């Protein structure tokens, strides 16, 4: 598996897109810090960017890479290697290279502006963790889609639709349902609903940092307990890890029976 991971990884590392992705974060990080010279504000802006961008890039990259390396995969499948190992290796290869671009691309500017000497290090690590988790989640989801659809165009369409669903449509449905059922107690529902979407989960991590004063304005005891203590952070992180695990399981399960 390590060998396949290494192949995928080095293949991607050599590709132009990884560097463009890395360059984008480098420029974004440096420009942000150059413009306001304030680490905490930079982190807040980046959190907003990352919540939308990493899932999108993860989705597109995952599905594109999987379709492009289809012939290589078929070649590998002819060898005496376990099937699950091949797919897992490829998955980790893509996710790791994307995460690395993210971590290096944001890490360098913040290092240059002295993140270790400021009190913002915890928030910055939080930013990187949520970005990395989102990458892993959405690459896994997109590979699943690619595994289920051998038609490239269809698979690509579904992948984009999935991103759109999690980024926009899901929130729209939640908002509509909350307005429709506004006469009922909704605080449990609101929390559970946002736990079922990884983008919403990462967004809540941002809210905990930025808008805690507004969140504490709501009367529900559950909200108070969730947002007022550190348990909110803990549960969100825990749930984010679950979100990585589930699509990977699905991927492994599917790869066992996938017949090219």
């Amino acid at each position, binding site marked *: 598996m390590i060998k396949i991971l290494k192949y995928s990884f080095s293949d991607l590392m050599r590709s132009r897109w990884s560097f463009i992705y890395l360059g984008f974060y480098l420029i974004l990080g440096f420009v942000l810090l150059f413009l306001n010279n304030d680490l905490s504000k930079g982190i807040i802006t980046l959190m907003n960017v990352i919540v939308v961008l990493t899932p999108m890039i993860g989705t597109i990259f995952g599905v594109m890479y999987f379709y492009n390396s289809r012939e290589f995969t078929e070649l590998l499948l002819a060898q005496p290697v376990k099937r699950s190992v091949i797919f897992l290796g490829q998955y980790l290869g893509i996710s790791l290279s994307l995460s690395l671009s993210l971590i290096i691309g944001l890490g360098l500017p913040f290092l240059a502006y002295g993140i270790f000497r400021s009190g913002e290090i915890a928030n910055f690590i939080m930013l990187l963790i949520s970005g990395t988790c989102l990458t892993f989640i959405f690459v896994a989801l997109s590979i699943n889609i690619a595994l289920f659809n051998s038609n490239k165009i269809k698979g690509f369409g579904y992948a984009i639709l999935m991103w759109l669903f999690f980024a926009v449509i899901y929130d729209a449905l939640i908002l509509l349902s909350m307005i429709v059922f506004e006469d009922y107690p909704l605080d449990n529902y609101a929390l559970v609903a946002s736990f079922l979407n990884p983008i919403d989960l990462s967004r809540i991590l941002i809210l905990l940092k930025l808008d805690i004063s507004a969140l504490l*304005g709501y009367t529900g005891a559950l909200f108070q307990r969730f947002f007022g203590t550190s348990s909110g952070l803990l549960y969100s992180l825990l749930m984010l890890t679950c979100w990585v695990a589930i699509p990977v399981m699905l991927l492994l399960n599917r790869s066992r029976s996938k017949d090219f």
Partner: protein
Amino acid sequence: MSTRAFMALFWLMAWIPGISTEITVCDECSISSIAVAVEEANAGDTIRVSAGHYTVENLGITKPMTLIGEPGAILDGANTSYVLRLLSDSITIAGFEITNSGRSYTKDYAAIYVYDSKMVQVIENTVHDSFFGILMEKATQSVIRGNKVMGTATREDQSGNGIHLWHCEEIEITNNEVFGMRDGIYLEFVDESRISRNYSHNNVRYGLHFMFSNHDTYTDNTFQHNGAGVAVMFSKWIRMERNRFEENWGTASYGLLLKEIYDGEVLDNTFTENTLGIFVDGSARVNYSHNNFLQNGWAVKVSGGCYANVFTGNNFIGNSFDISYNSRMNDNTFNGNFWSSYSGYDLDKNGMGDVPYRPVKLFSYIVNRTPETIVLLRSLFVDMINFSEKVSPAFTPDDLIDDSPSMKRFK
């Protein structure tokens, strides 16, 4: 008047300051009890109390005099009643540590109680473990300066206020620190008074509570971490300047609550990280200018019955919601402020954005209706509906715009 009589009057006047003597109270002195010293002193005398622990229960002072506590002078009320009652004009109490007034559900026992007096000065005392700290009723032209009132209150119904004034005029309350009480500073029917440079924090209810008090000024105070912030109610001609309202978090918590306030001025204040920066309810003709609203949940929430209020030259930076309205009616103006979420441009370089800014977002209207939707804050979809509402307002007041939003933050 004959020369002789004139001379006699002259000598009498020269002699009067001379009768002001100083009495020292200490454990080994001839007078070791403060009650005895107060009894024996003449009007205008000074009583100097050396370091030591004195039990003082319900001591009424009915003559003008000065009581000075040297460092370490502790007056203990033994948990019975009032500690000191100042019932005459021109009394000065300075430098004492006062503790253990009684507690009661029917009487407002206080460490220092002032009733119907003029020119009383309460200076640099420390009050702790008492029911009320400093309680003034019907006093005028008095000073409360540099005191520290500490409490350990946890419930509203079992605790008293730090500095409590009722029916007073021309009082100066400066440089005091109050914490752990019910209300830090409470004023009811108090006119023409100045409250400045006080630090009121961690009180169970309000940091400052103002009722039916007119023509007052409060400046340079800091209100932090209070249960419900600062409440100013049913008052006219109040000036609030250069105060700081910080970290008042909770479901019914404000930086500043203005209820039925007319003709006030709110200038140069800073509101940082409050659930609600200012909650305006039924107020008219109040000017808000040069205030800073930093990272509040709601910077300003305007409720019904607010007319002719003017917001100008304020900084709104990083608030979850800048302005929130609960209706489509608007009679207030919001011109010439700096909004950190303003995204317009300034082509003619006059320092004001060319596109008007709409401070009321559709999402704030939705959150007013269905509070649980707050979890969707900062979602991409919410940004989209806010944008569409901005283009054609349907739910928010369509005349509520800042025509000349500043491009630069006000210093």
